[in-house]
């Protein structure tokens, strides 16, 4: 497109510029206003959490600042072995709550890490508890046998427990691991497959004991 052609167009339009200036300006203002509101809303919606720090350089593992830790909802359910379990009976302990399913590939990836960290921190009063999501008991028990997981899991076939927790932490999928402090507040979370460095970093912060100290007790 030549410059001459570009220049000609406004010339052709020039007489129209005089007229309706008020409405043109008004329309421009309205459009700009709408765009501004949409932009602000989008920016506001995607705004970050200032009370959260990221663990181990990843945005999937977070620590909640003291005073900004969400209170974990209470729940009770049936374990894979058929006994009743109430979350409130864990009050006073640091609890690692792991949402998992035997069908889920990243859950299988993190399973041995969870088993070994559970063993590592057992003597430090850290209890591990699983929430088995959208699963069948036979498959879930086979999973715990395969990975040598000795801590109990509550069945959550309808994701009802997950729903309760979604009101306080943004659980987007399985697995999700929450670290709950002794007062029952959620101190840290790993969204997705948990790694050893992520989990031990959060636990070190919450228990005050690094992994090396924990194992030495």
């Amino acid at each position, binding site marked *: 497109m030549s410059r001459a052609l570009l*220049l*000609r*167009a*406004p*010339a*052709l*339009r*020039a*007489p*129209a*510029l*005089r*007229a*309706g200036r008020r*409405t*043109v300006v*008004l*329309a*421009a203002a*309205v*459009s700009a206003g*709408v*765009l501004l509101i949409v932009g602000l*809303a*989008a920016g506001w*919606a995607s705004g970050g959490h200032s009370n959260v720090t990221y663990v181990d350089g990843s945005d999937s593992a977070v620590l909640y600042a003291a005073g900004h830790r969400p209170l974990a909802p209470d729940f009770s359910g049936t374990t894979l072995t058929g006994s009743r379990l109430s979350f409130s009976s864990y009050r006073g302990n640091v609890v690692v709550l792991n*949402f998992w399913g*035997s*069908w*889920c*590939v*990243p859950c*299988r*990836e993190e399973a041995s890490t969870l088993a070994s960290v559970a063993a590592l921190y057992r003597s430090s009063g850290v209890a591990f508890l699983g929430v088995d*999501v*959208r699963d*069948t*008991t*036979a*498959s879930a*028990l*086979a*999973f715990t*046998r*395969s990975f040598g997981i000795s801590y109990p899991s509550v069945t959550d*076939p*309808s*994701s*009802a427990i*997950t*729903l*309760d927790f*979604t*009101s306080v932490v*943004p*659980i*987007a*999928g*399985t697995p*999700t691991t929450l670290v709950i402090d002794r007062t029952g507040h959620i101190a840290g979370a790993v969204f997705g497959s948990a790694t050893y460095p992520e989990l031990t970093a959060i636990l070190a912060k919450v228990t005050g004991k690094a992994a090396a100290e924990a194992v030495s007790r």
Partner: protein
Amino acid sequence: MTDVRAPETDPFDSAGTERDGRRPEGPVSPAAGTLGLTDWLKWAWRQLTSMRIALVLLFLLALGSVPGSMLPQQGSDPAGVAQYYTSHPALAPLLNHLGLFDVFGAPWFAAIYLLLFASLVGCVVPRTFRLAGSARTLPPRAPRNLARLPVSAEYAAALAPAGAVEVAARVLSGHGFRLRRPAEPDDAGTGSWLSAEKGYLREAGNLVFHLALLGVLVSVALGGLFGYKADRLLVQGTSFADTQSALDEFYPGRLVTAADLPPFTITLNSFDASYISSGPQRGQPSSFDAQVSYTASPGGPVRTDRIEVNRPLSVDGAKVYLIGHGYAPEFKVTDARGQVVYDGAQPFISGTTGNFLSEGVLKVSGAEPEQLGFSGVFVPTAVDIDGTLESVFPAADNPVVSLIAYAGNLGMNTGPSQSVYQMNTAGMKRLTPDPQLLLVGQSLKLPDGQGTITFTGYRQWVSLTITHDPGQLPALVCGMAALGGLLLSFLVRRRRVFVRARASQQGSTVQVGGLTRTDASGAFSEEFASLAAELRSAHQRAAQDQGAPPHVQAAPIRQEGE
């Protein structure tokens, strides 16, 4: 939009012409070479809000959505994108760079629709103001010679011109005309006059149409920003909570997060599908009926309801639609060590072939020492036709599964998430050379003591779509309003009637003239004729009511007049 332009290009409307934002190019301006920055900006704005550019943008929007349906999209089909990367290793990164795997989130796509939005708003808003102004304007002064108008009538009346006009005013305002009378009682030498106009509903309709159009835009934006859609497959006898990790697919709007999902829980108590069992329609579905119980929020009261096709369940602002169904055969699997490693229902998906011949896989990842996998076909009403198993009816009258067993590594311990409907058999060896048929209750012993699989029964499943579109109702209302406005603006004509009374020997000569924009159907000519007749008889009646014969009245009038 141009179809219902304000009547600015029409001599009928004297006010419109110079306020049009979208008229054809005028003559070349002598000031062409001296355009400043503001002029350029104004020019750009005029270009943007011109119908031509709006159409180009609309076309670009349609064109831009084409790759969205041709190429796998990251949001809806991440596995398809991964597949594309492996099959087109050179092309895929280039396409990704252009945002073609996430078309509807790509900046260039956003640019197109934001420009289109600005263009439409920039068109509609000024037009709305102009229409509002046009709806308020008074009719113009009556022309001097009403006989020149498309329709006119002339008759003598035994009334003074001012009285004749007064009578005409009563008649016309009785017919809903808006009147304009001279500021001074009489124009020298031309007699009394009156302008009347009717059909302002046309402008009102036009105004409604344009406002409703804006409303549709806003509604669509509302839906796109605050709406969502989610899918979930639910097996009979199971429940799910409406939370992101329990959904199979979740497509949130731009400003929706998982926290905005209403916290309901739905249990599928039973599902009944009825089929026509005889005649040429045999096997066609006659009804679907999902019996559900649900709570609107955790701990809330449990309610029961039915979901049928086109009869969604409404819960907490969301609508739950029944969009599909199928069979989930139930299996019990023991591994080589005799442990029960699977006991449950596995949804199978019916293909395009009829009668719900369904395929699926069963991945037994907990089997020891080797993982087990089965690929299977569920046949609801099985009949052996020449050695091939066919389903002859969609209901499960004679359910049979056909299984091929595998042992080895399912590839589930690391790597990307897997579909529960697909199995990667690359790391597995096939245990059964031929597909093995099982009836309900029958078991298959795997070779070499690898385990046993039992076909214990079947359940039905439904697939549900959960949608929330806050723009849906406003869009419907605005759409209907737009249609109504459009009809009004097409059906109602602006029409003017002028009356002039000049003093004459009998009293006055009344001229009536009518003008409308187009009168192809002749409806206005008829209306005018009947109006003129009514005016005439009203004048006669008024003259008689004055109680004097016409010739007595004539003299004083002549004195006043010409």
